[in-house]
């Protein structure tokens, strides 16, 4: 016995075709009317590289590493993000800040090496939740592309947002994205 799923089902008409139907022409004209209607319809295409579809606020894209207003890196290489990462995509090496590097790093310890393998990453956002230092966020950027697998291992230089001292515009833009990420964590 069949189960009725919707009310839209129609019984199949198995009557033999009458002579108008057997001429095909009427139904062909009907079909052509339908295609003509589609011809003048508004097209849903988004011209991709020039236009992009707006994302939801909670979209999780590629990571960025934050700086403070004076351009110092916030990350202290505590490793909490790497621990939180279910895909084990994050590696880092810590180092001690030397004399004279105060304008580079915010605290005494910093990440000498910070790498995220974007092919392993599942973009869950646990790293940004784990971070106690306000340092890592998931941006709205997506579709990374590269010629080699190696190129998908993002170094610290790839991840850091622009320095406000040299590129205030870029810094402001990145801060906007971070603000949005903060609201949706």
């Amino acid at each position: 016995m069949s189960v009725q799923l919707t009310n839209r089902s129609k019984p199949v008409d198995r009557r033999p075709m009458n002579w108008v139907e057997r001429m095909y022409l009427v139904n062909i004209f009907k079909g052509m009317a339908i295609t003509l209607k589609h011809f003048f319809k508004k097209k849903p295409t988004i011209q991709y590289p020039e236009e992009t579809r707006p994302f939801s606020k909670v979209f999780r894209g590629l990571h960025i590493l934050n700086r403070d207003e004076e351009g110092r890196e916030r990350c202290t290489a505590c490793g909490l993000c790497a621990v939180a990462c279910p895909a084990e995509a994050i590696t880092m090496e810590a180092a001690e800040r030397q004399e004279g590097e105060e304008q580079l790093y915010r605290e005494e310890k910093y990440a000498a090496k910070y790498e995220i393998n974007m092919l392993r990453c599942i973009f869950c956002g646990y790293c940004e939740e784990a971070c106690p230092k306000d340092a890592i966020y998931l941006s709205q950027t997506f579709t990374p592309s590269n010629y080699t697998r190696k190129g998908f291992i993002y170094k610290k230089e790839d991840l850091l947002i622009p320095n406000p001292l040299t590129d205030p515009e870029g810094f402001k833009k990145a801060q906007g994205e971070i603000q949005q990420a903060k609201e949706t964590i």
Partner: protein
Amino acid sequence: MFLLAIDWFFIIEKLLLIAAIVTLSMVVAMYATYGERKVAAFIQDRIGPNRAGPFGLFQPLADGGKLFFKEEIIPLASSKFLFILGPMLAMITALLTSAVVPWGTALKVGEHVVPLQVADVNIGILYVFGVVSLGVYGIMLGGWASNNKFSLLAAIRGASQMVSYELAMGMALIAVLMLTGSLQMSTIVESQRGGALGGLASWNIFGGGQILGFLIFFICALAECNRTPFDLAEAENELNFGYHQEYSSMKLGFFLFAEYINMFISGVIMSTLYFGGYDIPFVNEAALATHIGQNWVAILTFLCLFAKALIFVFIFMWIRWTVPRFRFDQLMNLGWKRLIPLALLNMIITALVVLWLKK
């Protein structure tokens, strides 16, 4: 003395005209590929090619360039001469058809009157049919010389389809010939000019009552051009692209090009036979000529024929992206059991009416 006897102006005029018509056919075929992709896209709610140049207008150039740079492969097992002859024949026959079409009223260059028609032979329409029938050799030779079972099957299909539809086409045409009483293309057009309803009443389709005849002719033209729903010769899902499977580079391009030229020319022929040719509806050309000059009228009439033909090309494309392909037995049934009796009926009724009116 012999050289002086030759009318040099005549030769140059005809050569120029031939060059113009061949160029026109080529350009139309080129942009018909673009048009086809755009029409397909619009019908499928897409946008189509729009990256090469404004609105993608350079797309045909890019496509052509690509085809030229592709490797040219001639299969070892093929018969080489025929393999090369196939696409050549397809192209040549496609271009030859345009020779007898009257493209517009005569131009006037100085003293000379230049008719916009390469050859006004008195059996014009027979010539068209002869050349179109030759077109099947392009497909036959191409398919056979490829030495590939699929290509051969496609060639056989193409040939049988063309032969069976030519019959119905010819019979539909006889009705038009009875109305006009001439096989000459220019006479057929002239007989459709002037008259009531802005000239529409003298067009063969309305005044001649050839609506059924036109419909048969149109369906047969679709089949002759190997267009969907009758593109069984290149059915990609059953025959792997049919007779052009083994072709590459510009040889493939020639086959595809020939199809579009055929489409354009058959649009022109249909306009000429049924829709008054270069006759501009609702306009009295003779009166207009006294106002703006004969040459402008010639250009306008040409544009009118061109527009009519392009409408047909659009309808061809529209049908292609609406109607699925026929099965082979359906195709043969339609051709032999439906169209030929209908064409015969149309012929007899037209004959009776013509006979009765002449009494």
